[in-house]
């Protein structure tokens, strides 16, 4: 998802230390980058900073991975990708590392994660996001994932999204 999505998860703390200035820059841009010729100068005006310093902090944050990229987040429905299938798989724990990597390498898989089961209710531990313009397209991609997983997969299902209820990305509390 997305970002979305765009949003991706990571583990524990890394070496990057967010400064107060970084936090202000995030707050000023989390809803969007100014749409003017020099957005850094515009942000500098708002925060009483030099445009060069603003740009330098964005470069540093992107370098550190705090910003993945400064980019457009589309509504995939509006682009014709109407079928957003979260395929979920119950994969034998002994094989999930190598099989997860193999599924992640399939060109049509946009996100692929291992997540915890919630037994007995939820037994799926591998999530692979697949998009398509038809349900058949998503199902044919799921069949290809099934082939990669082979006997190590006991069961699977596809959860189609029927509505985007919210899609804002990260928002710090002010």
């Amino acid at each position, binding site marked *: 998802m997305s970002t979305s999505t765009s949003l991706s998860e990571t583990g524990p703390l890394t070496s990057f230390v967010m400064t107060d200035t970084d936090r202000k820059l995030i707050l000023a841009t989390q809803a969007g980058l100014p749409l003017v010729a020099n957005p850094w100068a515009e942000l500098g005006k708002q925060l009483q900073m030099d445009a060069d310093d603003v740009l330098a902090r964005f470069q540093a944050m992107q370098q550190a991975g705090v910003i993945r990229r400064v980019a457009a987040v589309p509504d995939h429905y509006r682009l014709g990708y109407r079928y957003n299938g979260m395929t979920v798989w119950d994969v034998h724990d002994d094989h999930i590392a190598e099989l997860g990597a193999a599924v992640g390498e399939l060109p049509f898989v946009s996100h692929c994660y291992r997540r915890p089961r919630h037994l007995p209710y939820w037994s799926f531990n591998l999530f692979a996001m697949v998009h398509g313009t038809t349900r058949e397209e998503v199902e044919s991609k799921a069949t290809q994932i099934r082939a990669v997983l082979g006997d190590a997969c006991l069961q699977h299902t596809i959860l189609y999204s029927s509505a985007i209820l*919210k899609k804002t990305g990260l928002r*710090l509390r002010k």
Partner: protein
Amino acid sequence: MNQVEKALVNRLQHGLPLVHYPYAAIASELGLSEQQVLEGIKKLLAEGVLTRFGPMFHAGELGGGLTLAAMRIPEADFEKVTGQVNNFPEVAHNYRREHDLNMWFVLATETQSAITDTICAIENVTGYPVYNMPKEQEFHVHLHFPV
């Protein structure tokens, strides 16, 4: 969408160069004017083709928390609970899905401990349990929708 808009959607999903005049840089790459790029982005945002244009922050790298969570909400309560859940700024994305677990959202928080706090708060406000499914291993992330 016209050809200019399609070109913008395709190019802008990949990220802006971090230079003083980034829209001019994109314009020269695509053979457009800076004005066409700026007006094009504004139009795509206004029409809802783009939900956002800006930095994509990585909550985990900020030292914060990020997780995927799911809930099972009876139809009669779905709209009310959607409002309650979306009201949390920590809810970055929320999707309805065709399954018994019918609400799936991503939580992005400034600190890792805020994940548990937010999940408790959502359970308290809505009265329904939240299934927390944090990433245990990431195999691949690359989202791009060519048009």
